[in-house]
């Protein structure tokens, strides 16, 4: 049994896998150590990359699929990928397809990773940094999978030349208006700056959120299905959610009006040629 460690880095795993394929080592004879759950036997040094190892041709699509699935922090992630790679190189193309047991797991992980990337794009909250020479926006975010490196250029497309930092418990990205710097692990100073500003209130956004909510349509289940509880604490509007839920249940769901509007003085409009009933 060969025990390997790739530091949960795809490129490291890829070069290890390439060498193992060249050696003809089958998947049941190798195990990759999970960072958080070390194997009984310590990992051995990576096999030396043999310069003369025959290059194994695999579909380019497969490499991208493996790269994407590798972002999922799930037990045995590198072993699954090697097994699929092994099978495809031996002519079992169905190992890539959703109808196959391994392929099905591959596609499940690809879906999980792309959902988590989408969550990042949706739920990151960027806080303006005032009076700093090096940054305009900063965020602290806790993803469930390793999607930050592959998904954060999205914010450069959104924000043009603005400078921003997104820090997570595992890693971080800093965009200086032109270049993206990825760091794993997240530098302590970056983490401290991001956490100092996260959780800040924003009265305008909270006002908007409370007002656009329609209490007559209260539907916690659907909300939570789309925006699971684990995200709430990172959201500016997160602490409002339980308040709005309980207000709506306590009776304000009889019509659609927001609590903030109820009780304000109203005004019916009079046309130039016509008096309107209930004018006040």
């Amino acid at each position: 049994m060969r025990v390997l460690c790739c530091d949960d880095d795809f490129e490291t795993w890829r070069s290890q896998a390439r060498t193992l394929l060249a050696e003809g080592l089958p998947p049941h004879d190798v195990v990759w150590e999970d960072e958080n759950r070390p194997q009984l036997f310590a990992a051995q040094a990576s096999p030396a990359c043999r310069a003369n190892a025959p290059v194994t041709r695999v579909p380019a699509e497969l490499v991208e699929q493996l790269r994407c699935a590798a972002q999922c922090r799930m037990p045995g992630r590198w072993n699954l990928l090697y097994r699929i790679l092994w099978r495809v190189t031996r002519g079992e193309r169905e190992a890539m397809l959703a109808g196959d047991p391994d392929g099905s797991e591959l596609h499940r992980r690809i879906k999980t990773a792309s959902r988590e990337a989408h969550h990042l794009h949706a739920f990151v909250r960027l806080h303006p940094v005032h009076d700093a020479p090096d940054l305009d926006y900063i965020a602290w975010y806790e993803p469930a999978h390793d999607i930050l490196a592959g998904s954060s250029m999205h914010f450069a497309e959104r924000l043009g030349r603005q400078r921003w930092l997104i820090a997570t418990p595992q890693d971080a990205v800093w965009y200086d208006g032109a270049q993206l710097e990825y760091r794993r692990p997240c530098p302590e100073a970056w983490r401290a700056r991001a956490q100092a500003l996260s959780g800040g209130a924003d009265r305008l956004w909270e006002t908007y959120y409370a007002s656009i909510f329609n209490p007559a349509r209260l539907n916690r289940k659907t909300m939570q299905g789309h925006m699971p509880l684990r995200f709430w604490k990172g959201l500016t509007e997160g602490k409002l959610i339980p308040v709005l839920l309980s207000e709506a249940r306590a009776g304000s769901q009889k019509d659609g009006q927001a609590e903030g509007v109820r009780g304000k003085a109203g005004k019916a409009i009079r046309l130039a040629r016509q008096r309107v009933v209930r004018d006040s």
Partner: protein
Amino acid sequence: MELIEKLTILADAAKYDASCASSGAPKRSSRGKDGIGATNGMGICHSYTPDGRCVSLLKILLTNFCLYDCQYCVNRRSSDVPRARFLPEEVIKLTLDFYQRNYVSGLFLSSGIIQSPDYTMEQLIQVARVLRKDHQFRGYIHLKTIPEADPALIAEAGRYADRLSVNIELPSPDSLIRLAPEKQIGSITGAMGTIDNASNESRADKRAPRFAPGGQSTQMIVGADASDDSRILRTAEALYGDYRLRRVYYSAFSPIPNSPTSVPFQAPPLLREHRLYQADFLLRSYGFKADELIGNTGNLPLDIDPKLAWALVNRAQFPVDLNRAEPAMIARVPGIGIRTAQRIVSLRRLKRIRFEDLLRMRCVIDKARPFVVTSDYRPQQDTTESSSLRMQLSDQPAQMALWA
């Protein structure tokens, strides 16, 4: 009036518009450029409110002062709601600020009718123009179109907006006359035609400026009048055909404060709205016709989804052999969606489809089971009465709990 108070009132006034979509825009990026904003065609929901609805855009009215007296609308002139009006620069500042903090992907701006339809439309256009030209904003913009406005203004709106929408409001012209006395079906469909033509012209000439690349949508209120689902779906089908609408939104009528007696004051029919969206999806993406989906009662069943309902009255077309059937027919099987149908077709090029493959592809297996044949499976329920299948497969009544 303070900005925060205006926002309270004018977001509350905008919530009855169901759409918050930021999809369908062309790919735009601000990377390495002045200005901000990007679109990629997909759209992002940045939050969800406790009603389960997506928050994708800053959705507000420029003002809720309104000269019209539409009975179903909280902002009708005879309603005594608090009134407010944003300055264009206030909307612009809010949009840019919310965008940069990653709360939204753009703006959906609508307005009550003030002074005149043309004046109101000009105000909406001004906000979009300043965002695009002065701030080089490349995020999503959806502008509500005032049907009676000058076609030249609609043409201008389409140069800045990704999406335009004109609300059809009610499923029948009679209801419109009764509940929205100042609106006319002719001007509503006229504006839809103006948008469709402008969009055709822009596509035909590659050098022409782009016109509302995200297309147009509309909204129909469900449950404010007595129209049945048949009427609603046929109206939607006609709109999709005549004006190539990207989406028809259905908005279950929510009771409004100080409700006039001409509209109901009861819980919004959320389950009915849900079934209409399901049926609408079958119209748009599965090639169903409204006629096929509506039974003789005129309404969609509430206890089962419309595809299952269709399958139960068309048992002669089932079971479907997944190893032989046309892809379009596979997608008509309850519990199997378009994407799964595509997966089945690519898998069967390599091997025979077995029942366990369906489990792996995450079909809704209970719904699919009575309607499919695989290489190792034939449904025993093949001969079960549709009525008893329906009993087994109906959803739990969820509607009651919402109001309890």
